[in-house]
């Protein structure tokens, strides 16, 4: 389960709308509240793929390090990452699974013809074989 309030969800949707037809990506920073990963900031990150940005995203390792540093500075933790699927359902692709990291929450927003639609969240299984969907607590207030 991941807690994501409407304001942060809107940031993700807006980012997906803005980069359509290319994929957007960003980091989810937050903390564990009562054991629930609770997002306190959705940070946009540049998609540094040089080709195929309509179907792929890639975070520059230096941007990743910067996100970790920012989390440390604010006493937060990197909970996971979000990205958009332009004109595709909000389900992880095989490529998503193969590149996924354990213990990170992967939020996907489908953007259909430029309009953000469904949003889902996923976790990699411990043996790396599948991505398991988890529920998103949209209404929970997060300070």
């Amino acid at each position: 389960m991941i807690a994501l309030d409407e304001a942060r969800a809107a940031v993700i949707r807006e980012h997906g709308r803005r980069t359509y037809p290319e994929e957007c990506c960003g980091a989810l920073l937050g903390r564990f509240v009562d054991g629930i990963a609770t997002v306190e900031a959705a940070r946009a990150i540049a998609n540094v793929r040089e080709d195929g940005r309509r179907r792929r995203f890639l975070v520059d390792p230096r941007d990743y390090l910067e996100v970790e540093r920012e989390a440390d500075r604010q006493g937060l933790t990197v909970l996971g990452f979000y990205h958009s699927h332009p004109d595709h359902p909000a389900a992880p692709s095989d490529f998503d699974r193969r590149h996924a990291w354990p213990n990170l929450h992967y939020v996907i927003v489908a953007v259909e013809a430029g309009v953000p639609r469904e949003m889902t969240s996923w976790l990699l299984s411990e043996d790396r074989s599948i991505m398991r969907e988890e529920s998103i607590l949209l209404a929970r207030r997060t300070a």
Partner: protein
Amino acid sequence: MPKIALPTPLRPYAGGRDAVDAAGATVGEVLAELTAQHPTLQRHLFDEAGRLRSFVNVYKGDEDVRFLQGPATPLQEHDTLFIVPSIAGGAPTTEETAPALSHDEIRRYSRHLIIPEVGLSGQRKLKGAKVLCVGAGGLGSPLSLYLAAAGVGTLGIVDFDVVDDSNLQRQILHGTRDVGRKKLVSAEERLRDINPHVRVVPHETRLSSANALEILRDYDVIADGTDNFPTRYLVNDACVLLGKPNVYASIYRFEGQASVFFAEKGPCYRCLYREPPPPGLVPSCAEGGVLGILPGLLGVIQATETVKLILGIGEPLIGRLLLVDALGLQFRELKLRKDPDCVLCGPHATQRTLIDYDQFCGIGPADPGSTTDMTVEELKAKLDRGDAFVLLDVREPHEVEIAAIPGAVHIPLRQLPEHLDRLDPAEDLVVHCKMGPRSARAVKLLREAGFTRARNLTGGIDAWAERIDPSVPRY
């Protein structure tokens, strides 16, 4: 002892710590020591063959160790290694969403399936692909026939024309029995016979600025088989605006050109030809003729490029212009560069929408009240009245041999400037060619030389044969 900083997702495997001390003199030794201390990290850092996973980056200070000495990179006591995840992902590609093949299809495509570069996954990509052929004529014939046979799942065709006798010399989609039928109807019939697994989508319309984006939007690859400049620029511009590859070819007499214009990866047609030539300068196949086999050669090159783009194999003709000379049977290649000032695909592009391509190409709408144009009906009336005027035929001698309007003075267009003395500026002058463009240029030239009474016969001898005198053969 060197230190290893762990990213958030790996910390749970190291007791929640963000850094671990590990002894060793090289990156390889230190990582081995890390996984010895925390064995569950092994699976996430290394693949089955023991190599570092492609999405695991190891940095020594600011440098990726891949660009240092890899696992052999030496480490000092006080060095810190950072394990940095490469965060990547994306929507399913065509490979993952491509439709499955039936047993019938597997039998049909067996010669593709046993090529490693195509195989089952490639054939599924072809089945999932949507290709639009603009025009079901000379180029569109071999193009659509081979794409259908190859198993391209959805084949759109734009055409509004009717099969004519003069098409049959090269447009092998259509047969003698199809003369007078819509090209779309005969094309659909033929393509379904070749491969019933293909979905043929007919678009019975003239591609225009009003409908092009809407029609092209649904397709993965656009193949332009038209032979007029307004449509060629329209298809190019729409492809650039939609981010689609445009597989291009053009033909004239014994020569052809082909390229793939794909603005995301190379130049577009406007990078090659910023502006169209003046109307009439480059004759169409109807005016200048074409060896019937030539569209076969070029259309098959278009089909090859289309299939390569779908499969993602080989070297596409992006950034290259292939010149085909059938008489010398020579293939030459020119390098094409992206024009940094291209109004459409350059970094400072100014054109964001489609424009009026007839106007852009200098082709105005027919003006019935024009003082420089004349219809074949007006010419007939003039002849019947016995008006005094000179009828000037500017076609080539071999065309005059095929058909002529009696009483015409014959001076081929290219010789006209040297033979103006044969004409009298005081007389009325009606100029004709086969269909009108060459005589329009002749009239422009004549008027500039002082022959202000020169007028152009619109539709040329072709319109004359069609509407006035059926005894004149149409060619």
